[in-house]
């Protein structure tokens, strides 16, 4: 290490690491020379635990991995099991699943927005974000029973039918959110201080993003086409009218814009679906004890952070032989060192905020 370099520890207990991430940063003055993440402070050995849980049981534990997109994680697991068992999900269940996914995506992006603004220095958007999240949490609580870790998706459909108030509440939410998202743009997006902190920071090119395995808003912020809802459509996404948002700039501000526009796209998907929910079953008939045939199955969904993949290797029993969760944060974190070299230590916080990391998703 050249003379004059200082090694500091950021975390594991730190207000802006979004969880327990330990970064060992090598600085020269205020310029970053190297960032080395140390993981494992929330490693709950989920993959080993799932080898002893049945196919209906292991879905709850993925809610707790990326807890901000818990519905979407459960959705990915249910899709994998259905792929193995060749179950046909009824149309009503598909629409309900997509509705829940998009609501969760909005909730996750809203919290990301509040947390990023708080890291950059503005405390007020944090409270605005949680106020909107409470509206979505109320919808989830009335319908699914829980606010944060809803165990609503099962192999074959959803667990219970929609609550009678769901329709009215979602319409109220759409009306509320349309005005709020314009407020967010007014408050933060065009703010000159925010732009100075985020533009030109944390640049990653498209080839590097692909090589690092980045997905989701990080790759789309560099111009890569990678929205799983468009490329490998699942459920009813091919019938919906929405755009994949891409920005060419590749810096933290581009990633910010991608997520803000994605919120608007999710809102338009909810608007398209809420009045067109077909009648029918909410769950396909399945056996009580599920046994996947021998083989391997991979399913992928687009969470708020990127591509979440579930890879199940089954030997024909009631519990999986090996499950591997391809979590989006693990690959996105790999790119942090590349993005942060040469920047100042204050920029590290904006870069981490724009990466939108959820550490339990990384450590599993």
């Amino acid at each position, binding site marked *: 290490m050249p003379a004059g370099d200082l090694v500091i520890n950021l975390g594991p207990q730190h207000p802006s690491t979004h969880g327990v991430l330990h970064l060992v940063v090598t600085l020269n003055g205020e310029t970053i020379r190297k960032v080395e993440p140390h993981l494992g402070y929330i490693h*709950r050995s989920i993959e080993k*635990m799932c080898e002893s849980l049945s196919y209906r049981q292991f879905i709850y534990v993925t809610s707790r991995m990326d807890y*901000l997109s818990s519905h979407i994680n459960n959705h990915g697991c249910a899709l994998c099991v259905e792929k193995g068992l060749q179950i046909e999900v009824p149309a009503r269940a598909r629409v309900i699943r997509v509705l829940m996914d998009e609501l969760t995506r909005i909730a996750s992006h809203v919290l990301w927005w509040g947390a990023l603004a708080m890291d950059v220095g503005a405390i007020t958007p944090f*409270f605005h974000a*949680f106020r909107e999240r409470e509206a979505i949490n109320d919808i989830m609580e009335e319908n699914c029973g829980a606010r944060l870790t809803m165990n609503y998706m099962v192999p074959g459909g959803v667990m219970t039918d929609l609550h009678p108030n769901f329709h009215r509440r979602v319409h109220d939410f759409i009306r509320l959110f349309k005005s709020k998202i314009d407020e967010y743009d007014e408050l933060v997006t065009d703010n000159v201080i925010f732009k100075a902190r985020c533009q030109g920071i944390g640049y990653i090119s498209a080839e590097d993003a692909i090589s690092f395995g980045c997905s989701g808003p990080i790759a789309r912020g560099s111009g890569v086409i990678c929205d799983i809802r468009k490329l490998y459509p699942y459920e009813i996404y091919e019938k919906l009218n929405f755009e994949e948002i891409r920005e060419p700039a590749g810096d933290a501000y581009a990633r910010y814009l991608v997520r803000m526009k994605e919120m608007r796209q999710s809102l338009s998907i909810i608007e398209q679906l809420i009045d067109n929910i077909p009648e029918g079953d909410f769950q396909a008939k399945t056996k009580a004890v599920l046994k996947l045939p021998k083989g391997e199955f991979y399913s992928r969904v687009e969470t708020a952070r990127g591509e979440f993949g579930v890879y199940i290797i089954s030997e024909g029993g009631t519990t999986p032989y090996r499950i591997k969760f391809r979590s989006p944060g693990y690959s996105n974190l790999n790119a942090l060192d590349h993005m942060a070299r040469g920047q100042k230590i204050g920029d590290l916080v904006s870069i981490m905020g724009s990466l939108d990391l959820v*550490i339990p998703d990384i450590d599993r």
Partner: protein
Amino acid sequence: MDVMQNKGEPKPFPGQVHQTPGGGFLTGTLDEVIGWARSNSLWPLVFGTSCCAIEMMSTASAKYDWSRFGFEVARATPRQADVIIIAGTIVNKMAPVLKRLFDQMADPKYVIAMGACATSGGPFFYNTYSVVKGADHVIPVDVYVAGCPPRPEALLHALITLQEKIRMGGKRERIEIDGTQRSKS
């Protein structure tokens, strides 16, 4: 024999502080004032490991708002914090960090174990090799909150219970929920 009849005065244990007979007026009132002051301005430490941290943030936000109860400022450094709310699972790698944070806090300090994971390991109790089955294996806990994650109202109930416990003198005895048997102070 009925269990309720067996309850009596708690037996004295070594190191227990005994009330001085009769002469406790000044110190007794002072104790009450100090207990009231301490309980109404507990500053929590920013410490959240996993999902319960989001519910903790919701409790801090505008709808549930714990700052009405005195938990106004959440300090990032343990030197200035009074209460540590363990929100999330504690794993083997994190346990020494938690112990160090607790040691760095100045007395009087209190601990709330929020959620099923901090209470007993929670959903990660069986077949995991890296989870500490309950944060009280690492540091002494004052209040346990059940839930996965607990609702913000449940966390507020825990905070209010902690405040009552401090007002009672802070001894580590059970406070019952129905309000009949309070710990003697």
